[in-house]
Each structure stands twice: as C-alpha cells, then as structure tokens.
C-alpha cells in the first residue's frame, strides 16, 4: 500500500513465571501497523491482547522478539529512553474510574502529562493548552474544576483520551476503551476517536472483545487465541470471509440485534479456553475445534497466506 509502517512487532513474546510453570501470554506475534491506520485486536479474556498492548509501550519487558517503532528497534530501550518516546506513544485504559487520580480535578488530570514533560513555560500557557485539549475531546470548560467522581463514565473516558492526547502522540494503544460504557455513550466515544484519527493522522491499536466495535473502527484485524495470532486480514475481508474455525465460532456467538438475522449458534465452539501455562506444541484451539484431526497435534501451525493479505493459522489451509 506504500504507507509508512509506524509500529511493527516481530515474533514478539512475553512469558510470565508462575508457580505451575511458564505462562505464555504472548507467544510469537507478528504485525505491522501503517501510520494513520487502526489495527484491531480481538479475542476472549486471557488471550493475551492486553499484554500485547502493554508490551508495545514497554509497560512489560518482552521475553523475546522485536518491537520496531518508526524504523527504530526499541525492544531494549531503558526507562529513560522510553520517557522521551512516551510523548509519541500513549495508552487509553478500559476503566475510566480506576485510571484517574480521584484527588485531581479535570484540569490537572489532563494537564498532568504537560507538567511531567515540562511542556509549558507559564501558567497561562498551561491553562490555555488544557482548555484546548478539553475542547478537542468535547469536555465543556465548566468541568475544569470538577473531580472525576462527579462525572459520568463517558466524560471520564474523555478525560482519559484527553490525557493520552496531551503531548500530541502519533500512536495510541486503546485497551477496551468503550467496554465499560453504555451504548449511547459508546457511540459518542467511538465517533470521537475516529474524528481524532482523521484530524491528527493518529495510529491506533484497538484492543477489544466486541466484534461489532472492532469492525466499526479498524482497518485491519488480528484475531488472537491463547497468545497467538490465529487470523489476520483487512476488516472487510475478515468479516466477509472468515477462515479460521475460531473466528467463525466467535462470529457465530455474537447476538445480533435483529429478529430476522441469524440465530445464535454454539455448534462450532464448545468448552472454554485451555490453560496458557506450558502449552504443548500444536494448535491451541484444537481441543475446542470441531474440525480437529491428528494433523493439529504435535507441531505448531504457522500462519498460511490463504489469499493476498489474509492469513490463517489452521492446517486446513496448509499447502
């Protein structure tokens, strides 16, 4: 597509030590996000999607693999190096109530990053910048002196977005930013994120378990299962032509708000996620997969390029 690649992960891994053995939270993930685009990451709880987002920002240190940001390998950056980079890479968290300091008012919550990076020369400039950001994210001036507990969930999430935007970043990891919100508020926040992307050419990694939300906001989608990418494609292609049995099962399980539409099906997927601790080689989805055969066991299944730009990790597509 000729777009500049802003964020790239190569064989990225993160293992956590537990008393029962190594937990493979992220296990060999590859992707590229072009500047100004959104990569959606979907999967169930425990599939490693949040760990992946945190790895990119060095909130966890990678166990293996590489993270390349704007052409530079940042995998081994120390906290001091990261601080500079954090101006460009930001994060929006899921729970707006838990991620905001209850003792700061809206003005200081949004202004905190400006203070951290000593971005303003005077008090006047600081206030002006804060109000500019508040306007961008749709918070009225009268809330500047309010505390986060006085506001509703939608406005709190706008503060979270405002904080992330304060230093004019290029790349934002959005970790379930709308999951805690009511649908009418969710729509407002999604629209805001999309408008900001257009205005500022922002690049997003959008982590969610909600397939209809990810379809709405993403240009490309990665489906994760137990730490691995099982399918990757551009959004339209993925929804028109899902290949991996897990993706098909996920799509079947989403209740559609229409009577005439398809009915819920639990045919494809039975059972629950298996343990990510010391997984055996082989397809990790096989225990729940109706098409599993002997070929799924014993060896790891690579991603096959089934059609141009559409990858699936399933033996069905082995050449």
């Amino acid at each position, binding site marked *: 597509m000729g777009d500049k690649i802003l964020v790239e992960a190569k064989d990225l891994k993160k293992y956590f030590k537990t008393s029962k053995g190594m937990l493979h939270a992220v296990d060999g993930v590859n992707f590229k996000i072009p500047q100004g685009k959104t990569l959606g990451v979907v999967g*169930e*709880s425990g599939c490693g999607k949040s760990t992946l987002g945190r790895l990119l920002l060095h909130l966890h240190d990678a166990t293996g693999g590489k993270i390349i940001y704007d052409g530079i390998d940042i995998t081994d950056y120390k906290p001091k190096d990261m601080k500079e980079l954090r101006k460009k890479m930001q994060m929006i968290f899921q729970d707006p109530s838990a991620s905001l300091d209850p003792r700061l008012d809206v003005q200081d919550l949004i202004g905190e990053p400006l203070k951290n990076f000593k971005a303003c020369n005077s008090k006047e400039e600081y206030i002006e910048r804060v109000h500019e950001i508040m306007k961008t994210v749709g918070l009225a001036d009268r809330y500047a002196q309010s505390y986060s507990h006085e506001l*509703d*969930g*939608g406005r709190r999430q706008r503060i979270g977005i405002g904080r992330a935007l304060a230093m004019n970043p290029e790349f934002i990891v959005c970790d379930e930013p709308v999951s805690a919100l*009511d*649908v*009418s*508020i*969710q*729509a*407002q926040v*999604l*629209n805001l994120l*999309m408008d900001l992307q257009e205005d500022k050419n922002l690049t997003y990694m959008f982590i969610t*378990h909600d*397939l*209809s*939300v990810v*379809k*709405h*906001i993403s240009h490309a989608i990665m489906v994760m299962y137990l730490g691995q990418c099982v399918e990757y494609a551009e959004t339209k292609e993925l*929804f028109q032509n899902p290949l991996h049995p897990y993706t098909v*099962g*996920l*799509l*079947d*399980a*989403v*209740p*559609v*708000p*229409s*009577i*005439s*539409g398809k*009915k*819920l*099906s*639990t045919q494809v*997927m*039975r059972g*629950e*996620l298996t343990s990510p601790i010391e997984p055996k080689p082989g397809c990790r989805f096989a225990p729940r997969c109706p098409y599993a055969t002997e070929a799924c066991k014993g060896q790891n299944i690579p991603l096959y390029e089934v059609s141009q730009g559409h990858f699936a990790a399933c033996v069905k597509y082995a050449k």
Partner: protein
Amino acid sequence: MADNLLEIKDLSVEYDTEIATVYAVNGLSLNLKNGETLGLVGETGAGKTTTCLSIMKLLPEGIGQVTGGSIILDGHDMVNIHEEEAQKLRGNVVSMIFQDPMSSLNPVMAVGDQIKEVLKIHNKDISEEELNKKVDDMMELVGIPANRKNEYPHEFSGGMKQRIVIAIALVCEPKLILADEPTTALDVTIQAQMLGLINDLQQRLNTAMILVTHDLGVVAQTCENVAVMYAGEVIESGSAEQIFGAQKMHPYTRGLFNAIPKLDEDTPRLETIEGMIPDPTVKVEGCRFAERCKFATDHCKVNPPVVEVEPSHFIKCHLFADENNGGNQ
C-alpha cells in the same frame, strides 16, 4: 387477568440518601405470564435492577422503599408482604441470577453444598439421599460433572461459576427467574453457551423469566417480549417482532438501535443520543426523554400518554398520541 404470574402496577421506588432522594422507578407497569420471557432493556440508571430488587423484596432496608403502586407475584402482595413470608418465596417461587458470578458464590463452601443449601431451606423433610441426588442431577443439567461438587468456586472458570449460580437459582424449580445481566461479565462464546442453557432449562421447567440487559442483541436472541426502560419507566413495550421489526418506535429506542455498530452492515458513522439520562434526584413533570429528543415540542412538557400503536405494542410518546387523534402522517 388471572393467568398473569406477575403484575406490577404503577410502581414507584425511592432511595433516601444523605444528600438527596433518588427517584429510581417512576410509575412502572409490567405483566408477565407463566413461562413467558421478557427482556428488560435500558442503560445504566434506568431502574432495571431496582425493579428486580422490588419484586424480590430485597431493596436495601431503610434506604430504598416502594412509595406507590403494587407488585402481585403468584397471588402474593410483594410490597406489603412480611419478611418471613418473603423468605419462603425467594429461591422457591422467584430466584435471581446476578451479574457477577465471582461475587455471588460463597468462596469457603463447596459448590455442591451451596446448591444443597437452597433445597434444604425450602424442603424441610427431604432425605439426605434425595438431596444428594437432586444436587447431582442439577449439576449435570447445567453441564458440570457431578463429581466436581466438592470443589470450591475458585477452582472453576467464570463460565462454570455462572453455571453453578444458575443451578442454585433453578434447583427449587421457581416459577419466575430474574436474570440481572447474567452474561455481561462473560466472553461471547461462553455467553452464547449460557443463553442457550438458560433458554433450554426455562422451557423444560416452564419457568417465566425477566432478562435484564443493556444488550439488544441478547434480547433479540432470547426473549419473546421486550420492555424498554428509560429513567425509571417503561417507554415502549411489545413482542420482540414488534420492537425489532417496527416502523413505529419510541425516539429513544430508535436512538439505541442506531448507536450500536452493526456486524451485518456498514455504518460509516454512528448516530449518538446527545446528552445523558436526567438527574434522578429531580422530579420531572413531562416526558423524561424530551431534553435529548430530536422531536421534542412544547407538548412534551406534559406527561405523555401510553399509546397502543398496534395490538399489544405500547409506546409512551406524544408523537403517536397526536397521530392517533387524526394528526398528520
């Protein structure tokens, strides 16, 4: 009507807090037949959970109280009922499934014993053998091998815990289940399994259910009838076909539908409902949705009537009242 299992008429509930009085439910009416499934839809603060707690007579004592209207459940007046009587009904005639399975189970009691506890309380002279058999049967029914009955809640996954909560709710074969966001904390694949399970058991035991949810998709897939709540009242009700396929819709219901990203069609931009739910500590005279409504007129300062726009499809809005009086359109 004699065949109604539950009749709620003009119910009002208030919470007295230190700061102000919260008007949580304002003149809500609902009817439910034996074996019927009703989806109760609405956003945070609409009064869905308060309605359920009122039916169970579980409003927080001294804070929440019914200030008007009546609730008749299976012939019992649930507003004025004595606490001891209410205890006999809870778990036996009416059960509740809560949103969060992690916090509704006792962490230091084996799951089998938690199912047995309910049975024991409501069936005093049942033998130990029979009790154990019923517990085993119930566990198999919700899809958990009975040999795991001596394990503790933390040994189960989220989906399994919710299965146990469902087993506890159903073991006395109640006539009515109140399911308050039973699948909201679960992943979609587990949610699909759970909704299938609840529907299946409900049909087998001919239990009526009120499914409280904010997810219109869940309602479409599981409920026969739907009531949409806004700011403590039902603003639209009807069969699922009428609500989901209707030409006529309350402006708020329409707004809800348009705000959800669709899986089966492309929407370049989501429509939003501007503003937020009105302050529940202020009594509103007219239509409570008016300040967020695109169609609001001076008319809306008067409390709108409930209009039957087609048989058994009710909308509380002036738009449709005017129309029925020979207005335009």
